[in-house]
């Protein structure tokens, strides 16, 4: 595998694992924020949004302290997560998390809770209501949240370089690879990766559009009803 291709594959893998982590948790948290009356709501929202307001380097440094050998969770993962691809995923997930939660909150807030209650009274349990009513109705917003999160994870730099390092073949994702090549003065290699980066961004946007279009009945009917 050419080094460029392996960088792309690693970046996609790191971002995908980050989404595997951030999307379900983000959905759960957004659902709780929208549907439940929780105490300390402001505090939760502030903590969730914090990575958005902080420089990613600070987030990375925080992770390094928490996960590092002398940190509280240092021994938890054998040799530790620090300077592995999983650390890169974790860093990306945390930085993307506020964007995901905020978009999900807006998406779920648009679903009339009475529709969920109607589904319950029609014999659907809570999980089935989630799958047949809540998610299809919030589909577009959820897709947008997932896209924004994925794109943010793909472009993560500051937190990743602190907690995962910049190890070629292990933790060197696209932004880190570009940074390294610029530093080395290898403009040709840097531009190659920049072009790949742009291509990846466009591909993601096209995939997003495609998924929205084939959002089944949900997408079509909503467009028919509210888009006209």
């Amino acid at each position, binding site marked *: 595998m050419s080094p460029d291709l392996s960088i792309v594959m690693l970046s996609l893998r790191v971002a995908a694992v980050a989404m595997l982590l951030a999307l379900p948790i983000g959905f759960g948290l957004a659902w709780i924020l929208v549907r439940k009356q929780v105490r300390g709501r402001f505090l939760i929202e502030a903590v969730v949004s914090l990575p958005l307001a902080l420089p990613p380097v600070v987030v990375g440094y925080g992770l390094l302290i928490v996960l590092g050998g002398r940190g509280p969770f240092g021994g938890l993962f054998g040799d530790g997560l620090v300077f592995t691809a999983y650390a890169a995923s974790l860093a990306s997930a945390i930085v993307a998390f506020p964007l995901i939660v905020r978009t999900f909150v807006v998406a779920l807030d648009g679903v009339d809770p009475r529709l969920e209650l109607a589904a319950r009274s029609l014999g659907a349990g809570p999980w089935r209501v989630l799958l047949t009513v809540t998610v299809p109705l919030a589909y577009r917003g959820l897709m947008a949240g997932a896209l924004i999160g994925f794109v943010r994870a793909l472009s993560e730099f500051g937190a990743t370089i602190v907690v995962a390092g910049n190890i070629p073949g292990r933790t060197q994702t696209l932004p880190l690879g570009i940074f390294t090549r610029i530093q080395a003065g290898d403009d040709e290699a840097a531009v190659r990766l920049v072009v790949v980066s742009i291509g990846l961004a466009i591909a993601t946007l096209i995939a997003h559009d495609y998924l929205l279009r084939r959002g089944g009945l*949900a997408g079509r009917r909503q467009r*028919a009803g509210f888009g006209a």
Partner: protein
Amino acid sequence: MRTERDKSGVLQFSFTRTQGDFVLDVDGDFGPGITALFGPSGSGKTTMLNCLAGLFRPDRGEIVLNGRDLYRGSTKTFVPPERRRIGLVFQDGALFPHMSVAGNVRYGWRRTPEGDRRVDVDHVVELLGLGPLMDRSPVSLSGGERQRVAIARALAMSPGLLLLDEPMASLDARLRGVVLSYLRRIHKDLQIPMVYVSHSISEVLALADDALVLSDGRPVASGQPSRVLLDPAVGGIVQDEAIENLLDGTVSAPGGDGAPGGVRVGSVDIVTPPTGRAVDAPVIVALGAEEIILATGRPSGISARNILPGTIAELEPVGNRVYATVDIGVPVLVALTPGAVDELGLVRGQDVYLVFKTSSIKLLDAAPVAPA
């Protein structure tokens, strides 16, 4: 109040729920017919329905449907809404916008165990005249169509009880007649007990076998609608509304070109404005209780076209009015002043004549007759 007698209905309940300053504290039972839940806004009607359906949890008490505990505070029994088999029709339908009409109607049916499917979906669709709408999206439906789909959706899961939360609140007067006659038809055909929330006395009188009146979270009267709604305890509510008699009929003479129309209600013919409908078309005659003159003898030399003999079945004073229920084959409510009642010496059982002008009558669309 019926709390003293044995509870024998389909649904027995006695529960309390506190929401902030508001306390709902109800006790009673609903029979197999159509029960109207009546009361001013804020009296707890919707909260009560939500408790019955399991969407809200009472603080304490019990709810028993056909002998099955749905809620019992003492044993911490709480059957979740999806296992209660209680149909709930929301004010504006609450249809799923991402599904077709067919998808909506089949949603609950699909989740009904095969052994519990007593209602045939096709039959419900036909009964409510939804055939041509099945492929449509709910967002493209009119208010009346939406309500019919919502009712069909709730019926298709074979509910043991159907709760309707002001299904006509968002409909204009013309459509009310249609939904009203559909509800009557459903009840006759499927024999599913219904609880119908309304703050329209006219609707309740036209539809319900029983009525429970709530005020400030408590039941204040219950029993036969024409008695209960005219109960002095309820008087404050009644005075606010111009009561209309809503009488089911069929067109006997279409009228037009200067000729009046005619509608047969029960065994009597009523002269109406031109109907604009074909002979035998179902129609609802709306006639205000204030629009009717009551005479002790047959009047002559009078321009009003309708002079119908009947017998006074009830006389109920409410506020500054006395309401007479006159049986002309069907019960008709007439609003009188106490002075007029004294002067004429009206008593229960007396033979009288109802006099009203053709122009006092409004005709409302009824549901078309379902194809055989």
